[in-house]
């Protein structure tokens, strides 16, 4: 298991090991978020997808996001991992795990991390559609309008 607070993984990650990364004696709450590959996007059937990243910058920016969450909320630990490469329907694309003395900080930090990761970290999704088409998703920046 990687010992960084944010990293990109090119293979499936063991959930039990991830959870162990945020276990803490001071923690009374644990909140996690998993992003999964769904079988449709904006009404189109999706067969699978690929994530590409500018790895050096993504790992730097992702680490900043997690560090910001630690500064803003009273946490024990926070970890985030994002997959890159080819993923199938149902695969876990991203995992965020946060432990804290109390649940409010855990929920808030978990939400903060996934929102900022989606907003700022240079990772791109390439979807393959059932009709044979495929393409990159480049949503126009629109804070407050997050999927």
């Amino acid at each position, binding site marked *: 298991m990687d010992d960084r607070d944010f990293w990109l993984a090119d293979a499936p990650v063991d959930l039990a090991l991830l959870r162990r990364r945020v276990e803490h004696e001071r923690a009374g709450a644990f909140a996690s978020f998993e*992003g999964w590959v769904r079988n449709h996007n904006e009404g189109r059937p999706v067969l699978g997808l690929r*994530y*590409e*990243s*500018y790895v*050096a*910058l*993504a790992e*730097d*920016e992702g680490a900043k996001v997690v560090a910001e969450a630690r500064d803003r909320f009273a946490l024990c630990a926070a970890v985030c991992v*994002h997959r890159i490469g080819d993923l199938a329907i149902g695969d876990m*694309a*991203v995992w965020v795990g946060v432990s804290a003395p109390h649940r409010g900080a855990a929920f808030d930090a978990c939400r903060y991390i*996934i929102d900022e*990761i*989606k*907003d*700022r*970290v*240079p*990772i*791109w*999704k*390439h979807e393959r559609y059932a009709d044979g088409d495929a*393409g*990159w*998703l*480049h*949503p*126009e*920046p629109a804070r407050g309008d997050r999927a």
Partner: protein
Amino acid sequence: MTDVRLLYFASLRDAAGQGEEAWSTDAPDLRALYAELQARHGFSLPVEQLRVAVDGTFARWSDAVRGGSEIAFIPPVSGG
């Protein structure tokens, strides 16, 4: 002329037909450099929708083009 290394990702890489290239430019800043490459590769994304990074750190479009630097154009991201 200033020699730089360019990195392209996602749809920009597809449009350029390559993930990176060596480039010599007279562009005074990163904004002008992108305009030059837009003309060369037919990039459809306007500069307003992109971010730019130099040597692995986010930069400003008004920054000068530094010789020997590695410049990455960052299309709107879609992780998560």
